[in-house]
């Protein structure tokens, strides 16, 4: 029930926005999103499993399943574990910031805008709290519609192409994800006699499938999830969409929508197809590493700030994927932490860029720069968030990047941690260059944008509604984000502790599987060695 209220609050706000008139839309949206935030905080305080020794859902699954199609085992089921609750908190935390960030930027069709925004965040929360495949898929797909319209109506000059690309990319991929999940459900029905789409049923059943089948299921799931993450060859929708979206849209896309893909990897791929993950893990990790380095190199030559940050997301999400595939608790904790810290840091950066854009109507590094003197407050927040993104120790980005890399580094056969893995130092080493490149391009951008002589576009004139530096409203939008970055950087323990039991539970089958994988590989190597020798001998 509590979770239903969480989902319904933004929707009720939508009705208020719809009938409240064009002028009041933003105020009502702000009120609604604050109420949602408050309710989510209440839920987080009620959540009984922060300190749990085991991985537990809350509320207990049977308590709130609502049968939709009992014949097919389709039931609406909501529940959270610590990871999904953290992601819900990330989403509701950013919602008021988004509303504040688009306060004056959205001038026409305001009501619609806030309705799309609120529907979007409902859908995203729905994905995080869904405990059955069908509602997961429903929310996953439904989130495309508000995203599409936000992009297509309020976006930049290339909005049409961006919105179509955004929708079609994800839709195409996720159809195959649905196919994979339906296949698992069918196998489950074949062997147990009962149809069920509950994630818990399918994740306990799917690992019993053969390695070959698991491989295909992994491929189908990846088709849907890799687009969202995004993994290297499927990332091309992202820079366009993030660049063209209005500020609130970019924030939402970068901070939350990207997490849907990673969350899907965590909730489906890891528990469902362990054998395939062990076999194909290195391949996926190679794609992730390519993404890290390639996107970082692209960032280096960008002159459009927003595009630069969009590409940096591609690079950063690669680290989170590596953390997941490290198959040890450190990496998984790091990956979850990465989802949160990237959400806050990049979301905040997009907000800052939006504020700058409202004043200068350009995002081009060649046209605008040296703002530290003119906009000291803005520069302060911008620099804090850049540092958080770079991974400066003391801020949240450092913790997550460090954990992901350590996890990857120690993911070797026969690791001391008790969690042997299929990656290893090489992956960590190459990925670490992405970190260095990240520091380079982000600091280069900061240097150009904040320091040096003041450069403004030739036709610039002061905005009538906005002060020279940030207004109180804008500070209210961005300051909480910066604060969270700092707090998470200094005190990551509560979150890491909360994720630990989940990580251990999810990774339980892996050590044995990895061992077996290597044994098999050794045996295969021996066989090939033997055949080599016999061949030699026969010659």
């Amino acid at each position, binding site marked *: 029930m509590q979770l239903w209220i969480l989902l319904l609050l933004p929707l009720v706000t939508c009705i208020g926005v719809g009938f409240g008139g064009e002028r009041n839309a933003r105020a009502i949206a702000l009120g609604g999103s604050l109420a949602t935030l408050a309710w989510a905080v209440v839920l987080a305080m009620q959540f009984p499993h922060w300190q749990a020794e085991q991985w537990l859902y809350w509320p207990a699954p049977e308590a709130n399943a609502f*049968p*939709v*199609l*009992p*014949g*097919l085992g389709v039931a609406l089921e909501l529940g959270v574990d610590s990871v999904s609750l953290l992601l819900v908190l990330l989403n509701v935390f950013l919602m008021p910031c988004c509303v504040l960030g688009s306060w004056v930027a959205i001038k026409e069709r305001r009501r619609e805008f806030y309705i799309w925004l609120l529907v979007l965040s409902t859908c995203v929360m729905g994905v995080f709290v869904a405990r059955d495949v*069908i509602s997961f*898929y*429903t929310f996953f*797909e*439904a989130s*495309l*519609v508000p995203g*599409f*319209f936000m992009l*297509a*109506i309020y976006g930049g000059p290339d909005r*049409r192409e961006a*919105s*179509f690309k955004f*929708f*079609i990319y994800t*839709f*195409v991929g996720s*159809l*195959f994800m*649905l*196919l994979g999940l*339906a*296949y698992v*459900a*069918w196998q489950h*029905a074949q062997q147990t006699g009962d149809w069920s789409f509950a994630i818990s049923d399918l994740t306990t059943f799917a690992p019993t499938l053969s390695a070959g089948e698991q491989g295909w299921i992994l491929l189908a799931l990846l088709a849907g999830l890799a687009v969202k993450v995004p993994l290297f060859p499927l990332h091309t929708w992202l820079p366009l969409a993030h660049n063209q979206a209005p500020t609130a849209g970019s924030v939402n896309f970068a901070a939350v929508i990207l997490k849907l893909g990673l969350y899907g990897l965590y909730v489906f791929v890891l528990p469902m197809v362990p054998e395939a993950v062990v076999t194909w893990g290195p391949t996926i990790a190679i794609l992730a590493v390519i993404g890290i380095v390639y996107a970082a190199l692209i960032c280096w030559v960008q002159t459009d700030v927003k595009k630069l940050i969009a590409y940096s997301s591609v690079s950063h999400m690669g680290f989170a994927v590596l953390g997941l595939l490290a198959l040890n608790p450190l990496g998984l904790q790091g990956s979850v932490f990465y989802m949160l810290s990237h959400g806050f840091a990049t979301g905040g950066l997009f907000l800052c860029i939006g504020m700058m854009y409202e004043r200068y109507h350009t995002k081009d590094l060649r046209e605008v720069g040296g703002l530290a003197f003119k906009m000291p407050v803005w520069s302060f927040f911008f620099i804090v968030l850049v540092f958080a993104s770079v991974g400066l120790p003391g801020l949240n980005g450092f913790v997550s990047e460090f954990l992901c890399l350590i996890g990857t580094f120690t993911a070797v056969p026969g690791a001391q941690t008790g969690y042997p893995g299929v990656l290893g130092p090489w992956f960590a080493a190459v990925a670490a260059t992405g970190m260095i490149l990240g520091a380079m391009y982000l600091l280069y951008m900061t240097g150009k944008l904040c320091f040096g002589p003041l450069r403004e576009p030739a036709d610039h004139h002061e905005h009538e509604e906005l002060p020279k530096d940030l207004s109180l409203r804008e500070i209210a939008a961005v300051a909480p984000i910066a604060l969270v970055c700092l707090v998470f950087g200094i005190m990551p323990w509560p979150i890491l502790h909360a994720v630990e039991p989940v990580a251990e539970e999810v990774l339980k089958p892996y050590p044995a599987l990895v061992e077996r994988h290597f044994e098999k590989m050794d045996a295969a190597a021996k066989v090939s060695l033997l055949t080599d020798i016999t061949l030699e001998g026969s010659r």
Partner: protein
Amino acid sequence: MIEMSSKLILITPEILLFIGAVIVAVLGLSTHRRIRNAVPWTTVGFLVAAIVATQVVYDGSKTVTDADLLFPNLGLYLKVMVGVIAIGLVLLGIGMVDRRYEDAVRDGRTGFDPLRVVRGEYHAFLLLSIAGTMLVANANDLIWLFLAIELSSLPTYVMVALGRGTRRNKEAAIKYFFLGAMSSATFLYGFALLYGATGTLSLTGMQAVFATQAAGDGIPLFGLIGMVFAFVGLCFKITAVPMHFYAPDVYQGAPTPVTGFISFMPKVAGFTAIIMLCAAVGWSGHHIIDNAGVKVPTEGLPRPVHATLWVIAVLTMILGNIGALLQTSIKRLLAYSSISHSGYLLVGVIAGTAEGIDAVFFYLVTYGVATVAVFGVLSGLQRHGREVETLDDLSGLWKRHPGMAFVLALSAFSMLGLPPLLGFWGKLDIVIAGISAGETPLVVIMMATSAVSAYYYLHLAGLPVIRKPDARTEGVEVGPSPWPRIAGMVFGIGILILPFGARKLMEQAEASTASSWLEPAETTLNTEEARPVDQTTEIPRA
């Protein structure tokens, strides 16, 4: 004698519709405007009566079991579904009498537009076609099946031709009629071969003969050829490859309410007939004889039939979706979309068994609801007194008629299969049936092609919202009659709320196909259970 009377009782709803057809045809001749205005409502009244009669008739389970049908309970589901959606389709064509326009039509100066002129014969033909579609559900032999299918399509030829006047319309009428006649000849030829192969016209008798043959040496070749001919002929009714060529032109040339009608009604008749023929030959128990002369049991339909349907389904899905990508005219786009939906439905037919057929009948409902909604919007709009033509005409619709744009987006997304709208559940049902039957490659193709459809449905749903109104769309306004819009709204809301009743609908679809031969394990399913409890209020009536 007993058989005759029980059959007559079973077709009471159709008889009612026949009477209705005669009455509205006469009423339409009246010189009083008020009486002529009552014609569409009389039509609706008879449809309601037919729905009620269906439920009364199927309440006495005895008559149903007597009737010697392949699917004894199918009539209840099919007739109620067809009736309810037909009410929506009638509403699409309810107009206001416009005297001057009527004179112009009478003098042949302009074409018929059901939204402005009330003509008895339009509604009479509509009722006849609906009656034909309902009769298909009761078919127990090939002759009945043929006559019922013809009854459902012949009136539609006239309905298309009624809009005479524009060149495009004449082209549509001619194409529709001649190709339709050719398709009828094709499947009649197939029926003849089937009779030759089995020596019986009765579908249940045919089923028994086929079962014996399948257990023995296999079904004789010309039985299979007859099957293939019948399917190819029926492809015209369901707008599937290779008989799909007429669809874009006819859909574009017919008056919009008629387009809505022909994109739903013949399809239901065609799919019911295809399922009956497949049921006669059976989805199991077949084998092939390999080179060594050993019988190897196969899954699903007999190999040649399976292969034919498989190829038809794949080509239909691919051509339908690719063709739609290139369209700028809304009605042509919807024609291709209708083709691709036939492809998805064929996946359910090929999957077969109880699950597959249920999925097909459920999908037909989801498709019908979305069709009424989208054509409700199109019939409800006009541009300078003519139909809206291209996607550009809809630009900025959101600004001027937010409700219509909303319904259009809903129906487009529902046809795309976006959860949680109604269309998603239909597609999910078919996907699951397909996977369960081991037709994974087919389902993968279905997924891939419906991914393509995202592009054009997105245009249909998105352009009215995204684009700003421009000079071209200045002339776009709502039509004189509110009823198409109301039908669109009601069925649009249905797309939103019916998913909550999807369970009931699916249960009814399941009950409708329950038959003793389909699942031997479940022969104990008694008629009390087989009869759905709540039969009425699933689809909102206008």
